């Protein structure tokens, strides 16, 4: 498995985010904040890293004049997570 991806998923917040996004279509920042039990600043940094690694999509838009951001997993993210999970299971 790609070492960079493995390094990306080694962080608990990033791993939790990717795991959650695997089972949903889209998710807001607020929901991710609750799921990861993280601070806004930290979560923003981790999401940016996941996005730079091509594992998640970030879609920004306005809803009733308020800026909203939706997050979803990319095909690369899905494939990487599956590889990562299979690798973990093989060690079990």
């Amino acid at each position, binding site marked *: 498995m790609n070492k960079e991806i493995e390094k990306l998923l080694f962080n*608990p917040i990033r791993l939790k985010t990717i795991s959650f996004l695997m089972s949903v279509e889209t998710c807001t920042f607020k929901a991710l904040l609750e799921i990861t039990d993280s601070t806004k600043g930290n979560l923003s940094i981790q999401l940016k890293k996941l996005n730079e690694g091509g594992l998640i999509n970030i879609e920004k838009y306005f809803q009733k004049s308020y800026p909203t951001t939706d997050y979803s997993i990319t095909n690369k993210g899905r494939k990487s997570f599956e590889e990562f999970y299979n690798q973990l299971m093989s060690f079990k």
Partner: protein
Amino acid sequence: MTKEEQLSIINDAIKQTKTNLKPLGYNLVFWGVVIISMSLFHYFFPQIVQYSYYSSVIYWVLIPVLGMFYTTYYNIKTGTKIGYETQLDRVIRIIWSVFGLAWIFTVGISLIYNVNPVQDILFLLGIVLVMSGLIIKFRNITIGGIGLLIFTVYTYYNPGINLLLVNVIGISFGMLVPGLSLYFQKSDNLQLRY
């Protein structure tokens, strides 16, 4: 982080994914009440609804279209509040959106050919209810849908039956009662986990 800790994080995150079925219950109850009220009003006050050909068309098209706008607004608002959409949410949304389009198409065709669309709509509704019930694994909705399908087939063989009363009986047992039982389920039982 050990491998066990990583697996535990993955399991915890996936366990937090829940499909909240209460909004679906609300939608079923809302449409059940609207259609039953409209049918009863039409049955008891035909002179008002059937004042002219266009008045009954406006009555049976305008109110449901307004209802569609309201439920779309409600579903968007609820979705925003929950903050995420699961694959199951998406499947349910697509199925009911397709039913909405099929309803518009059926009503349009019935206006062109001047036929009553009640039985066709109830048949479609029965199929969608059975599909929804099976997908969310909620027996009452599946049974309601099957009952509605059987009832609709029965009405095809009894052409003299009053279609407004057919609407009331079919929607009550196929949509309203299952919708109420879904809406008033304890919230823990209303969340499908992955």
